[in-house]
């Protein structure tokens, strides 16, 4: 059991280090978040819904 756990944790540690070195992140990079925000704003403008921010936020630059 202990060896299995140690092996499991070592593999997890390796994956974690590799992911960090590769810049992988589950929450997306700044660019991905910015693109998602712009897309949401555009969708909001298209449909007139309030789901997308209408500007004035951090990424809008207005």
């Amino acid at each position, binding site marked *: 059991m202990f060896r299995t756990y140690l092996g*499991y*944790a070592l593999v*997890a*540690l390796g994956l974690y280090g*590799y992911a*960090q070195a590769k810049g992988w992140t589950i929450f997306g990079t*700044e660019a991905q978040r910015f693109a998602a925000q*712009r897309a949401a704003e555009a969708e909001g*403008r298209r449909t007139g819904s309030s789901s997308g921010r209408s500007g004035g936020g951090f990424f809008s630059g207005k």
Partner: protein
Amino acid sequence: MRTANCPSCGGPLRFRGATSIVAVCAFCKSTLVRDGAKLEDIGKQAQLLEDDSPIRIGADGRHKGVGFTVVGRIQYRYGSGVWNEWHVVMADGKSAWLSDASREYTITFLVAPQALPKFEELRPGQVLTIGKNAFTAMNMEQAEVVAGEGELPFRFTSGWKADVADLRGEGNKFATIDYSEEPPHVYVGEKLPFDQFAFSGLRDPTQVGFAKGRALAFKCAGCGSPLESHLATSEVVACATCGSVTDVTKGVGEVVQSAEKHKKKFKPSIPLGAEGTWNSVRYEVVGLMRRQITVDGEKYEWTEYLLHNTERGYAWVSEYNGHFSFIQNCAELPKSASWLGGKPRMKYLGHTFEHFQKSEPRAVYLAGEFYWQVRLGDKAVCNDYVAPPLILSSEATGNELTWSLGEYAEGPDLWKAFKLGGKPPKPIGVGPNQPSPHTGKAAFLWKAFLVFAAIALVLQLVLGALIENRSRLSHRFAVEAGGRTQSVSVPHKLGGVLAAPVTVHTTSNVRDTWLNLDLQLTNVDTGHAYGMKRALGYTKVGTAMQGASVDFGQFDGVPPGTYTVGVAASAGASASAPAPVFTGTVEVYRSALGWSNFWLFLGAISLWPFIAWRRAAGFEGHRWSESDYADSDSGGDDEDDE
């Protein structure tokens, strides 16, 4: 040493001890009292009861480096059987008493009179101060002299009665108070293992205990079933068929508890007479007792098997729901420890025991021979403390307090040791002192978790330092409205470890037209280039201007190295006059190392120890669900408790 001749039969007499004033003639049993040069015959001694003590007059031993010789003994009878007080004369001339009761040995010395409570006021567990030491009253009995032999330091006669209290102190300290004297005689000494006395000249082992030809066979007066007693120390024999208890202290005696038919037939898992070796000691099962407690109207029963070994005396094996423990009397008095979690605790042999339950069991089934005057219905107040695989138990009757230590025994191991047929009963639930299969696992896993978490933290900091997100390739550009321009930055080193994304953050002052950027990131050393087109600025939608003057993009798979960024900018016409020059900044950098993967990693590696911890907690919940401390959470988890 002084020698004399018995005035009754002429046999030789010796007074080896200066304090010896009585000698029993070994030939005619006359009791002779020394008064100066005179010897007074005060009558014949009664016959000593046969016992299995390995000690005899003339045996030598040592205590704390001082040799002694056994010169006499008084045999006493009390409620729980017979014991011997051996009068020993130390090499330094002192006199002491070596007590031998059921293979437990104490040596005590007379000390100065003490302020003591009356015998009637003493209670088991009461603490007295003798000298500078605290002693706990363990046993108060009226003892009766059976007979004596050899040299003794005071007059006595058979049938003489004395109120005696035994007390235990810290460690192996022991005290006895003899209330038959005024003021009471106080003896203080130690309880020690037999081997520590380094005896020589003991009785022939083949003449002690299970000697052949000493079996006492008879028919139960209650039901006629054949019964047998083969231990010299046995006080009673209980009939397994009808429950009658027969006194066998002087051969086959009277039935001291008439045939109270056992309410139900009971088939013990370990039969009487079974022999086996446990902890390198050969034992025979000589008796068994079924005990019962009632909790919330529900009856719980367990079995206690009495084991006997000629050299080591008695031990027990308890059985409850398929859980077994091997039990022996405590050599020392356990100490109270501070409470924890509302539970009293005791310390013994370096272990800390938590209180498990208080119970008042009564004997509901008896079979075999016992070394004390046991009866069906006998009650005691018991307190159990656990430190798996150990269980520490106190048992108090009206005048006695005893402590015993048990260790969990696996059924298959017992079956193998005692060569029993079939299989042991399957354990049900969790035994009070059953060792947890999870003990230490969760703690080990949590420790490993902490180590990995620390490694990950260090890795996070090292990677963060290598990536150097604060060092940015920054390039300013300018473009006229309606115009185009190209520029290239100075080379800049981008940190990192592996090929990873780099962020491109663009800001501009464009307000009323579009701005397109053609970006190219070029590795100065390899010439490898990464291209990207970005659109900023504003477009008119209806009457409103929509867009942004900032932008975030990223180049993927960029290895660390030295790079330049080339910017080809083109801007739309502006309504402003004169035509403005738009400026902007392109920053290329590694994004700061996020912590999401770190937390994800911690979550992943904490799962295993968390499950182990839950399993351990579930097992303990089951254990404590039958204790006095059961709560609503107990027994909630039953993942793998068997």
